């Protein structure tokens, strides 16, 4: 399979410059034995995803990604690591036994082979439109008109999750 390049060279270079560290950090995240290092590798992946959103012209989602994931979720995960007293150094007890790891790797490789075959078969050579910037006004108009009901349901979901998390984790 020869590599097909897109029309816009600068965007292609930017894509690969962002994508390669992302994939490397993701691989380190699922293989490192240090839980805190795994959380920091997750930050690299999340920032990379945010940069890919900017390449796709979705600036508001990129900002939300940084605020919610890097600002809140990673901090929550680090709190989880702290409260469950995982050893802060190397910890041999974080992986399953080798047979299960090999089975997991096999599943992941086969899944990727099938998905990449399907993607290349269906979308090979499809160019993204040059004009793909979606201003915040369009997104917010859409949220507050077409998607108003899911939006309100999301706020109820967040409230339920908040109460649920407090009820579960508080000490009586």
């Amino acid at each position, binding site marked *: 399979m020869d590599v097909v*390049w897109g029309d816009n060279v600068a965007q*292609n270079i930017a*894509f690969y410059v962002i994508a390669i560290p992302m994939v490397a950090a993701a*691989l380190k995240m699922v293989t490192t034995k240090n839980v805190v290092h795994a959380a920091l590798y997750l930050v690299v992946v999340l920032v990379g995803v945010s940069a890919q959103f900017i390449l796709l012209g979705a600036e*508001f989602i990129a900002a939300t990604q940084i605020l919610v994931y890097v600002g809140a979720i990673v901090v929550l995960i680090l709190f*989880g690591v702290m409260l469950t007293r995982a050893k802060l150094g190397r910890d041999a007890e974080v992986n399953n036994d080798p047979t299960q790891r090999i089975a997991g790797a096999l599943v992941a490789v086969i899944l990727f082979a099938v998905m990449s075959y399907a993607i290349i078969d269906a979308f090979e050579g499809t*160019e993204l439109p040059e004009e793909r910037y979606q201003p915040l006004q*369009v997104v917010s108009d859409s949220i507050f008109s077409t998607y108003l009901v899911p939006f309100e349901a999301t706020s109820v979901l967040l409230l339920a*999750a908040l109460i649920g998390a407090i009820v579960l984790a508080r000490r009586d």
Partner: protein
Amino acid sequence: MLLTNFLLLAALLFCIGVYGVLARKNAVLVLMSIELILNAVNINLVAFGVITGTISGHVFALFIIAVAAAEVGVGLALVILIYRNRRSINLDELDLMKG
């Protein structure tokens, strides 16, 4: 800029996340792998939203970010509860419902 670039990147991240869920024993690390999977799906949604020229992909990605925040909050509360009861968050020791 090709659509397949983004889709293949998302597929790769998704598969790395699946490997993380299957190969890890520590519950917090499994939650982190789930975050990886959700992010891969977000890239897909935004890319398809761009290719169809609608705003739906963007809006759904925002909703998924909100749901991921709720999920990780409740998930970590559960993990802390399990740790408090069993002094361990190794997932292979949680076999209470095994027949």
